């Protein structure tokens, strides 16, 4: 009985097994015939896309990308007539994939959008200007690279520019050149870490509340400060200069600056008579230092306050911190918080050139600082906050 059961179960198993085996052999045979043809077809199809950005390219071969290539580069091909790189960047949305053809002279031949999720119709309108073989980036080189930025579609056009620049850098690297692919922010962070003898520390710009002569900028971290003096980065940790190849002059300037910063103590102004006299809608808080300087935090009416209510129903101001010296001259300004349109006003407030242009200005001439086309209301909002700071400064100093 058991033997019969085994027999009755064995037959279906064997038949199914044999059918599967014969099927596998038949498929293997067909694959042997069609496999190379399919591979050749796929190569031809892939080359077709590559030829759209590098029409003179021949014999495309994929490049093995290593750490030395920019992070944005996701694919690369070497051809007889140049290179083709595919970069994945983030515009208004992530996943903006751009292909760029670069000839043997290091010049852009053509660019093409492979994939995009830029939902805003205005952003998408950038593509016809930059895509193809006669777009805005044609013949651009790494040395003289000029981004093509469009007001109102800044994020998309900046991302496109980033992809093209990364492709040009990748082409230079593939050609054997030594290219620094780090962003300016990465370079700054690396330089600060190097000056302080640390790795991976995050540095933030110190908000200047004291006038420090001879020092261009100060960056702080949990381990110490880094002073930028001309081209030198001088690290100071626990009152001592880090590093041996620093000139005596720079060391002295850095230590003097460190002493000023360490001695600088801010006292919050809480006198109700003084605070009560200030415009409560504009004024947030104020501090004074022993050296007679003031740090005043105020609100400014930007696009978040004056823009269409359907987009900004909560009505939030630009909050600005301003430090003013005893002579009524601005030492530093910075954005504490803002709710402007990310790719228009938000970009302006993240632009250090705009923010730094208020340094050393007085009540009389701060308004001469120029804003940015398309972000006028944000620029005016920033100036509005500075005006409020000067008004508060006058009241706090008794009209002096």
């Amino acid at each position, binding site marked *: 009985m058991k033997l019969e059961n085994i027999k009755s179960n064995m037959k*279906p*198993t064997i*038949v199914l097994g044999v059918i*599967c085996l014969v099927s596998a052999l038949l*498929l293997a045979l*067909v694959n042997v*015939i*069609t496999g190379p043809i399919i591979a050749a077809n796929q190569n031809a*199809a892939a080359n077709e896309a590559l030829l759209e950005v590098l029409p003179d390219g021949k014999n495309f071969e994929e490049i093995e990308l290593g750490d030395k290539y920019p992070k944005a580069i996701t694919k690369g091909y070497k051809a007889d007539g140049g290179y083709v790189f595919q970069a994945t960047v983030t515009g208004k949305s992530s996943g903006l994939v751009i292909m760029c053809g670069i000839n043997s002279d290091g010049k852009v031949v053509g660019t093409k959008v492979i994939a995009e999720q830029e939902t805003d119709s205005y952003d998408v309108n950038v593509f016809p200007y930059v895509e193809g073989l006669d777009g805005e980036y044609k013949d651009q080189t790494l040395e003289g690279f000029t981004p093509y930025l469009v007001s109102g579609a800044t994020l998309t056009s900046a991302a496109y520019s980033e992809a093209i620049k990364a492709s040009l850098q990748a082409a230079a690297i593939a050609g054997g050149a030594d290219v620094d692919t780090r962003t300016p922010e990465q370079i700054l962070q690396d330089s600060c870490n190097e000056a302080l003898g640390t790795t991976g520390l995050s540095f933030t710009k110190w908000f200047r509340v004291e006038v420090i002569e001879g020092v261009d900028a100060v960056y702080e971290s949990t381990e110490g400060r880094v002073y930028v003096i001309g081209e030198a980065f001088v690290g100071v940790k626990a009152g001592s200069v880090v590093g041996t190849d620093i000139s005596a002059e720079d060391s002295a300037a850095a230590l003097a600056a460190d002493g000023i910063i360490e001695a600088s103590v801010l006292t919050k102004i809480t006198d109700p008579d003084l605070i009560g006299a200030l415009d409560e809608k504009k004024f947030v808080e104020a501090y004074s230092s022993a050296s007679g300087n003031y740090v005043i935090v105020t609100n400014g009416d930007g696009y978040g306050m004056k823009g269409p209510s359907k987009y900004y129903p909560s009505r939030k101001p630009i909050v600005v911190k301003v430090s003013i010296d005893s002579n009524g001259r601005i030492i530093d300004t910075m954005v504490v918080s803002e709710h402007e349109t990310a790719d228009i006003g938000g970009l302006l407030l993240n632009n250090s050139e705009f923010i730094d242009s208020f340094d050393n200005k007085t009540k009389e001439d701060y308004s001469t600082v120029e804003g940015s086309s398309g972000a006028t209301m944000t620029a005016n909002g920033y100036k509005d906050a500075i005006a409020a700071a000067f008004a508060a400064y006058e009241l706090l100093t008794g009209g002096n």
Partner: protein
Amino acid sequence: MTNNKKLAILLRGIIQDNPVLILILGTCPTLATTTSVISALSMGIAATLVLVCSNVVISALRKIIPDTVRIPCYIVIIAVFVTVVQMLLQAFLPSIYDMLGVYLALIVVNCIILGRAEMFARKNTVLDSALDGVGMGIGFLVALVAMATVREVIGNGSFAGFEIPFLASFKIPVLTQAPGGFLVYGLVIALMNKITEKRGGVKRKSFSCEGCPSSHICNKTSCSEMLELTMVESENTETKEVEENGN
């Protein structure tokens, strides 16, 4: 007489037992690939090739394949032919391969092919099964091309990719979309019913049981009879429960 029988097997799939319009099988690829005549023609030819080859092999192996594993065996055989067709199309007609997309691989689970293997090929000779495959394949092809012609000409103002000057200005795009597919499908079935009505109609009931995977263990002559029996049994059970609860 024998020749007439063979001819009848061949022709049956085209009108009398048309798989798409009478048996209502293969609806998914029918709706998906009839947006253009070229894709419908390609799908029809690919499915016909698979149908003929799988019918022939299944018929040849009908005495070897045990009943208990017949469905897995049929699926493997059909899958092999579909994969072969896929590979050949990808190698030699890549544009058609791209056009058919996932629906080419889905021929593996096409009801027409598995249905003909189960209903015909496993009970008949190799030649008869081949003829049945050719007939059913042509029936499928004709139905697909007829539907695609209506959808492409009226919906897209073109035929096989060539624009028709006058109609291009008055096209009805909804016909190339899913709702239009159902609409045209319904209308073509209605037309087919009208044609077959004159010939005494279609015996759907006999197919219902024959095509049912449980037909070999079911002794009823039709599903409606089975349904009536189930309903009577259900009523009896309910009455019994009420009586028990009452006590």
